[in-house]
C-alpha cells in the first residue's frame, strides 16, 4: 500500500520513456451552444502523456467552457466526441474523476480549517470498515510531498498555506489518486514570481512521470517556459495549434486577437472638453502609481488581464478602498473620498461589475432601486412614495426598461434591463464622472448596443467615463484613450490612433518587443 502511488508514477514514467508520444486524451469537433451564444465551435484538441498543452486566448475566448467540458460539468453538443485512452467516453463529473482527469480551478476550493492530509483525503478516505486508516493516509501524503520536493508538514492547516502551496497540495492530491490528466486553470493568478517558478518546477517533475497537463494562462512567459504545444482560441473557435519551436510571442498575440475591426460597434465621437477628473500617482488596494487625466466628453478605457488591478483601482477612486498614496482632483479641486458617500457628493457614479450583488436591491422595486443613491443629495427628511414611483417610471421610460411600471421588482427583470435600473440609479444622482466596470457583462447583444448608445448620450451631455472592460472589441470601439494595467501598475496609455487589439493585449501581457 505504502509506495503504491509513487510506484505507479514511476511505472508510468518508464512507460512514457519507452513510447514517448502515447496519446491519453483526444477531443474531436467539440461544440457547445448556450441559448443565444456559441461558446465553442468545432474544437479538436489532443494531449499526450508527459506533455504540457497550453491553451491561450482572451477573456471570453472559450477556455473556461472547454475546461468544463473536460471536467464533465458541461455536455458538448451532438456531433463532438471525447476519446480517452482510445475509448469513446461521455464525460460526467464523476466519470471524469474516475478516468483520471483532475481539474484544478483558479479559485481554491479547499477546507481552510483542515490539514493537508485531510484536504487530500476528504471524500475518499482510506478506511477499514468505519475506522479511518490514518497511517496509510499520512504515509501516502508524506511520500507525494517528498516526491514533489516539498518540505511542508502534512498536518499544516490549509488556510495557513500561501496560494502557491495550496496549488501544490491540489497537485499532490491528483498524484495520490493517480490521475493521468491535470487541468490547470490560471494557476498563477495570485502568485508571487518565486511561487510561479516553484509551480513550474513541480509541473516539470510531475510530467516527467507521464502525466499530461492542460495549462491555461494569460502569462505568455509561463507558456514559453513550460509548454510543449500551444493552442489558441478566439471567440469559441480554434485559431492555431503549434509546437514551441520557432513560435514567438507576437505570433501568439496575433492569433489571439485578429478580429475584423469593421465588425465592431461604430460609436459617435464627441469633442472633448476640459479635464474633470485627475488621478496623480494613485496607490493603495494593490494598485501602484497610476496617473491619468479625464476630459468631459471622453471615454477612458481601462484594459488589462484578470487580476491586473483594474477593479481595485476603481474602488480606490470611488472611496470604497483606501487611497494610500497620491491624490485625486475633481474639476481641479483636491478631493478625499473617505467613503462612496463622499464620491457621490463629488458627482461620481460607479456601475459595478457584479450588478446583482453590489449594484441592485433585487427584491425591491425599480422605483426603490432608482431613488436610493440620490438620497445622499436629498435634503428633505420627509419623502413621498408617489414621487419615487414617478421618478422610477420616468427613468423606465427614458431608458426603455421593459416593464409595466416601476413597481416591478428588479429580480424579475432580464440582465439588460437590470443593468438599465443600475444606470437609472446613478443618473438620478445627476453625477458627471462615471465609472463603468464591465458595462455589458452578461448582457445580450441588443441591450449591449442600447447601453453603448446611452454611454455616448452621457458624453454629449458633458459627462466623462472611465470604462473597465475585458471585452476587447468593446474597449477598442468605445474608448477615446486606453489605460493598460499590469500587475497593479500602469503598463501604457494608448492614444486614439494607437488603440488596437494587438497593442492592448501586448501591453497587458507585458511584452515589450512588439
Amino acid at each position: 500500500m505504502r509506495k503504491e502511488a509513487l510506484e505507479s508514477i514511476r511505472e508510468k514514467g518508464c512507460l512514457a520513456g519507452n513510447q514517448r508520444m502515447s496519446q491519453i486524451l483526444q477531443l474531436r469537433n467539440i461544440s457547445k451552444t448556450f441559448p443565444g451564444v456559441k461558446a465553442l465551435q468545432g474544437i479538436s484538441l489532443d494531449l499526450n502523456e508527459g506533455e504540457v498543452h497550453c491553451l491561450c486566448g482572451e477573456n471570453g475566448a472559450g477556455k473556461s467552457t472547454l475546461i468544463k467540458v473536460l471536467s464533465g460539468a458541461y455536455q458538448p453538443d451532438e456531433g463532438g466526441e471525447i476519446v480517452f485512452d482510445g475509448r469513446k467516453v461521455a464525460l460526467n463529473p464523476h466519470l471524469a474523476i474516475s478516468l483520471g482527469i483532475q481539474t484544478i480551478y483558479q479559485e481554491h476550493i479547499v477546507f481552510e480549517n483542515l490539514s493537508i492530509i485531510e484536504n487530500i483525503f476528504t471524500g475518499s478516505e482510506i478506511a477499514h470498515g468505519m475506522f479511518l486508516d490514518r497511517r496509510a493516509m499520512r504515509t501516502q501524503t508524506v511520500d507525494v510531498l517528498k516526491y514533489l520536493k516539498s518540505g511542508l508538514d502534512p498536518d499544516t492547516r490549509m488556510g495557513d498555506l500561501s496560494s502557491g502551496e495550496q496549488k501544490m497540495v491540489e497537485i499532490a492530491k491528483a498524484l495520490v489518486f493517480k490521475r493521468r490528466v491535470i487541468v490547470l486553470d490560471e494557476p498563477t493568478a495570485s502568485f508571487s514570481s518565486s511561487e510561479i517558478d516553484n509551480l513550474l518546477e513541480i509541473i516539470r517533475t510531475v510530467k516527467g512521470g507521464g502525466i499530461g497537463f492542460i495549462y491555461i494562462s494569460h502569462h505568455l512567459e509561463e507558456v514559453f517556459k513550460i509548454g510543449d504545444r500551444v493552442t489558441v482560441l478566439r471567440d469559441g473557435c480554434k485559431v492555431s495549434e503549434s509546437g514551441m519551436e520557432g513560435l514567438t510571442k507576437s505570433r501568439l498575440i496575433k492569433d489571439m486577437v485578429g478580429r475584423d475591426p469593421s465588425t465592431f460597434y461604430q460609436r459617435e465621437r464627441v469633442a472633448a472638453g476640459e479635464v474633470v477628473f485627475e488621478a496623480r500617482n494613485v496607490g493603495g488596494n494593490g494598485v501602484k502609481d497610476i496617473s491619468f487625466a479625464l476630459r468631459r466628453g471622453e471615454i477612458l478605457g481601462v484594459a488589462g488581464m484578470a487580476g491586473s488591478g483594474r477593479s481595485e483601482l476603481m474602488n480606490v477612486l470611488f472611496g470604497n478602498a483606501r487611497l494610500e498614496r497620491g491624490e485625486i482632483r475633481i474639476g481641479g479641486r483636491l478631493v478625499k473620498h473617505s467613503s462612496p458617500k463622499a464620491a457621490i457628493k463629488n458627482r461620481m457614479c460607479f456601475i459595478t461589475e457584479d450588478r446583482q450583488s453590489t449594484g441592485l436591491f433585487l427584491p425591491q422595486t425599480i422605483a426603490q432601486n432608482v431613488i436610493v443613491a440620490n438620497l445622499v443629495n436629498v435634503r428633505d427628511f420627509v419623502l413621498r412614495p408617489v414621487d419615487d414611483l414617478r421618478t422610477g417610471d420616468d427613468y423606465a421610460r427614458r431608458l426603455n426598461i421593459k416593464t409595466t411600471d416601476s413597481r416591478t421588482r428588479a429580480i424579475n427583470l432580464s440582465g439588460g434591463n437590470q443593468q438599465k435600473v443600475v444606470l437609472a440609479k446613478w443618473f438620478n444622482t445627476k453625477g458627471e464622472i462615471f465609472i463603468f466596470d464591465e458595462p455589458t457583462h452578461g448582457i445580450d447583444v441588443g441591450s449591449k448596443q442600447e447601453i453603448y448608445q446611452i454611454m455616448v448620450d452621457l458624453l454629449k451631455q458633458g459627462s466623462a467615463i472611465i470604462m473597465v472592460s475585458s471585452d476587447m472589441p468593446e474597449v477598442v470601439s468605445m474608448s477615446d484613450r486606453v489605460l493598460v494595467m499590469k500587475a497593479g501598475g500602469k503598463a501604457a496609455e494608448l492614444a486614439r490612433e494607437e488603440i488596437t487589439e494587438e497593442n492592448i493585449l501586448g501591453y497587458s501581457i507585458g511584452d515589450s518587443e512588439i
Partner: protein
Amino acid sequence: MSGSEAVGRKSGARLSAFKRHENLTPLSIFLGFIVVIVILQLITQGISRFPTFISPVNVLNILQQVGVPGIVAVGMTLVMLSGGIDLSVGMLASLVSIITASGLTKWHLGVPGSIAAGVVAAILLETLMGFIISRTKVEPFIITLGGMITFQGIALLVSNSREVILNGELNFLKANLIQGAKDPATGLNLVIPPYVLIFFLIVLLAGLLLKFTKYGRRIYAVGTNPLAAYLAGIDVKNMKLSVYVIIGFLVGIGSVMLLSRVNTGIITLGQNLEIDTIAMVVIGGTALRGGKGNILGTLIGVFFLGSIGNAMNMLRLPSEVQFVAKGLVVIIAVSAGDVSSKVSEFVARRREQA
C-alpha cells in the same frame, strides 16, 4: 404634473390587491387573521355565554394585553428590516423594570427620575450592543444573546435576586381614559389605559417613518443588500446602530408601562418577551434576512398572536397547551406566508412574460 401621470397613478390605485403581488403577503396574513377571529368567535360563543370574543370588553382586554409587546415589536420590526435581530429585549425589560422600581422605592429618584433612569439605561445598553454589531462582523444573534444573559445578571445583582414592590407610584399610567363606560351587552367596565394609546401612536409614527422618510428608505436598502447600500452612499454602520438605539428607547418605555400594570419590578417580568415579539413580527411577514416587511404586517401579527392567547385563556386551556398552540401558529403562519409569496412571484413572472 402631466395628465398621463395622473391617469397612471389612478389606474395603479384601482388595480386589485391580488394583481399587485407586493401586497399579497400582508393580505394573506390579514385574511388568515380574519378567519381565525371568526373561528374563535364561534367557539367562544358556544362555550361561554358571556362575554364573547368580539365583545367590546374583550377587544379592549386584548389591547391591554398586547400593548407592551406591541411597542417592542415595532422596534423589533425596524431591527429585523435592517437585517438584525435582538434577543435581549426580554431580559432588558426585566432590568429596566427593576431599575425603575428601585429608583422609586430605594434610591428616591422621584417618578420622572426613575422612569428616565430606566429608559436611559435601556437606550445605553442597546446602543452598546448596536455599536459592537455595526462595527464588527459578529452575528447580531450572538451579541444580543450575550446581552440577554448579561442583562439577566445585572438585573439580579441590582435587585439582590428579589422582587421590588411598588406602592402604586405608576398607577397614573394605567388610569382608565374612559372611566364609567360600560359594555352594553354585559354591563362590565370598559378600560382604555394610556399605554394602549401610546402603542397606537408608536405604530403610527413608525409606519410613517418607514414609508415617508429618507431614513425608512435607507433601512430597507441596508436590510436588502448592505454592500450595494454602502456603494450607494448610505452609512450602513450608523444605520445599523440607529435601529438598536430606537429599540432601546421602545423597550425602555414599554417596560415602564409593564411595570405600571404589575406594580412589581421582577426578573420574570420580561420573560419570553423576545420570543413573543419576534413571533409577532415574523407572523406579520417581516423576513429574518432583512429588507422585507412593514409596520402594518407587524400590527396584524401583534393582534393575531394576542387574540389567540386571549381566546385560549377564555377557553381555559392550560398554559402547556397554549405554548404548543402558539408555536404551531408561528410555524403555520410563516410557512403559509412563504407559500403565498412563491405563488405571487409566480403570478408576477407570468404577468411580466405576458
